[in-house]
């Protein structure tokens, strides 16, 4: 018993019913063959990275199933290839790590990656923080200088004023 995963892109121009019907046909096909369907991932409408058949978006579906008979994969791929509603497909056999990953993903355990990303972001913010602190200190220094200059100016003016008074 091996676990497989077939991902296919359905033409988005079709109506919702037709899109669902395509999914149903392959679901039924797999069920008739006696496979155990583990999970169906409906990734929904996504932007394509490059146009396929003059379409810029597509509806992604991913069916995960267990199967004994290897020859059935050929049949499935042939019917996918002949189906005009399907723009692209890819069948992959999963190793034990892949099976585990998909299980974890379904249970929402794939937050570990996000944590790593958070760490990276934290690093960036840390690096930016001292820069800000430096700026603040710079500003303080400038302020101090300004204040000092004002004081000296005031002192000079006081001196001159006192000198004038003396002259009078």
């Amino acid at each position, binding site marked *: 018993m091996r676990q497989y995963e077939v991902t296919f892109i359905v033409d988005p121009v079709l109506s919702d019913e037709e899109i669902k019907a395509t999914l149903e046909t392959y679901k039924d096909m797999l069920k008739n063959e006696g496979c155990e369907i583990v999970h169906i991932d409906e990734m929904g409408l996504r932007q394509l*990275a490059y146009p396929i058949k003059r379409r810029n978006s597509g509806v992604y579906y991913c069916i995960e199933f267990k199967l004994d008979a290897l020859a059935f994969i050929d049949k499935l791929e042939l019917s996918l290839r002949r189906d005009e509603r399907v723009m692209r497909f*890819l069948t*992959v056999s999963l190793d034990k*790590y892949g099976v585990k*990953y998909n299980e974890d*993903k379904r249970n929402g355990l794939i937050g*570990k*990656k996000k944590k*790593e990303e958070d760490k990276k972001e934290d690093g960036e913010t840390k690096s930016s923080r001292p820069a800000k602190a430096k700026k603040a200190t710079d500003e303080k220094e400038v302020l101090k200088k300004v204040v000092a200059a004002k004081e000296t100016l005031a002192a000079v003016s006081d001196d001159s004023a006192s000198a004038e008074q003396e002259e009078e």
Partner: protein
Amino acid sequence: MASRDDIKFLSNPTIGQKRDKYCRFKRFGIKYIDYKDPDFLLQFVNEQGKLLPRRITGNSLKYQRKIASSVKRARHLAMLPYLTDQLK
């Protein structure tokens, strides 16, 4: 004349240093690379959508091979482009 505490380094001391590269899959225990996750795969690809060499990413050979295959799968499914400009 500025005090000696201000002038610590005339040149940036981190410039000449080597940063240790490591394989992130080995370090964080990632065993499977998902080809349906283009955001993750984007880290191993340059702006033109080409695969980055191991020399730069620091991956071990085992996981570099897996990345290469999953990037190619993602390209087939139009999740990553075959060729572009300004991907990042």
